[in-house]
């Protein structure tokens, strides 16, 4: 039930040049891509960004269906953004007016651009999670944040917390489904009635879920302690991320993308 719905954007295990890249290169590239999206200010720019996204998808050999599945939800938001921008942008020639609502020619273009920006932003981020295992992702994040431990930033702990969260998401969702069934068996109506009624019906689901999660957390902490876990102290890494030339190459391409997008602003 809930499990299938929420597992979108999860790692898609196939072989591809993008899958093989170091997680750090992919994280940095995604960051650069997102920032560049806000540099771009005309259609040439958006076309370039869309092309980069499509090229990446093609090289990653992901089936379009897998990428699309993750984008469906964000598409609603994207369309919503578009509509809002249509009506709240007052510059340009008025095409249509109803009381305070104004639709202008520039407003339409601006709305489409905003919607596209949001869509590309999330789409590219989803490429990252589709082509990188959670463990690579957290390892990469830890390694990127590690320099910050000089100022006492808990890079290791954050990475460990993230990876434990990722490990337990499916387990806890399974549990949630079980609790729903258990409450249904006792005659609870969960998906019927008014909004308020449904919110109220969530209480007998959330309380046992939280209690169980806390119990899990405590047992897990014991298990980790029994396995000599004492934070990042004295700990080694089994699969250290390896930086290759191809990773540097990938990042150089994204640096060129920034240059290109700045140049395209002038057109």
């Amino acid at each position, binding site marked *: 039930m809930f499990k299938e719905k929420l597992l979108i954007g999860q790692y898609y295990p196939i072989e591809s040049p993008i899958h093989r890249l170091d997680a750090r290169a992919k994280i940095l590239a995604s960051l650069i891509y997102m920032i560049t999206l806000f540099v771009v200010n005309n259609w040439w720019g958006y076309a370039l960004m869309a092309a980069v996204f499509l090229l990446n998808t093609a090289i990653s050999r992901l089936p379009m269906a897998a990428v699309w599945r993750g984008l469906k939800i964000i598409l609603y938001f994207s369309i919503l953004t578009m509509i809002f921008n249509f009506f709240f942008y007052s510059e340009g020639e008025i095409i249509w007016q109803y009381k305070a609502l104004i639709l202008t020619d520039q407003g339409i273009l601006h709305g489409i651009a905003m919607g596209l920006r949001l869509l590309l932003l999330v789409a590219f981020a989803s490429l990252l999670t589709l082509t990188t*295992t*959670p*463990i690579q992702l957290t390892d990469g994040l830890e390694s990127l944040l590690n320099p910050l431990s000089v100022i006492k930033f808990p890079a290791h702990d954050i990475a460990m917390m993230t*990876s*434990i969260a*990722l*490990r337990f998401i*499916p*387990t806890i969702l*399974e549990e949630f489904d079980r609790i729903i069934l258990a409450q249904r068996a006792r005659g609870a109506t969960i998906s019927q009635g008014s909004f308020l009624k449904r919110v109220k019906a969530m209480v007998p689901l959330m309380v046992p879920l939280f209690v169980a999660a806390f*119990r*899990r957390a405590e*047992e*897990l902490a*014991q*298990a*980790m*302690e*029994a*396995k*000599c*876990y*004492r934070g990042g102290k*004295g*700990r*080694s*890494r*089994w*699969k*250290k991320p390896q930086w290759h030339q191809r990773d540097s190459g990938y990042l150089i391409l994204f640096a060129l993308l920034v240059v290109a997008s700045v140049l395209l602003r002038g057109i």
Partner: protein
Amino acid sequence: MIEIKGVYFAYDEDTPVLKNINLNIERGEWVAIIGPNGSGKSTLARQINGLLLPDSGNVCVEGLSVLNSEQLWQIRAKVAFVFQNPDNQLVATSVEDDIAFGPENLGLEPELITERVENALNITGLQQLRNKPPHLLSGGEKQRVAIAGALAMAAEYLIMDEPTSMLDPHLRTQVLGAVRQLHANYNMGIVYVTNILEEAFLADRVVALANGVIVAQGTPERVFADTTLISRLGLELPPVCRISSLLADAGYERLRGIGDLDQLVEVLCKLS
């Protein structure tokens, strides 16, 4: 050797859970701790690797004391622990990463970790599942991953707290098989907490606990021969044992305490 010396322990002051426990466990020995719920079995198991510390008395493993905070970490490297709930002891997002978790904590070199992980995967027969995430494993497989993790730590002792109580019978044999192998091939000392007496039968020695006190210990045959004790503890003898003790009560003394079906048949045949 594990030495438990005069251990008292209470979660809250008024109700002591362990009262003056004295117990030595040799390396390579298999000890089963039995007793009803609330008898202090799990609490006793947690004393051995210092997850709980004694209020008075001491616990030493190979001469290291749990009361010394530096030695405590050395003890935990020697004494691995497998918990009851298979779901809540796997940390990583894949089988092999979870097995590597312990060795990583010990700060071992990556090459050595690879060697240990491979070795543990081979022994527990988990090679096929190495990249699977924990939530796609069966309960028995999860417990085997936990055992493999203990193996990768190169532990000398393995403590198991009712590791099969949440498993189906056929998965139970799977897990017990893995434990048997560790015991036989690696001379690992095993402390096995259970209230399933069939499982306790595999042990060299059974320690019966009631209300935080050791009430009996000895070979399974000897402890299980005392049927009044077993029923007082609220435990259930395995069927073979029940038959042999009934026959013994009926006058066939030689059958007392036999728990193995083949052995029972053999002795019965010789009787006539």
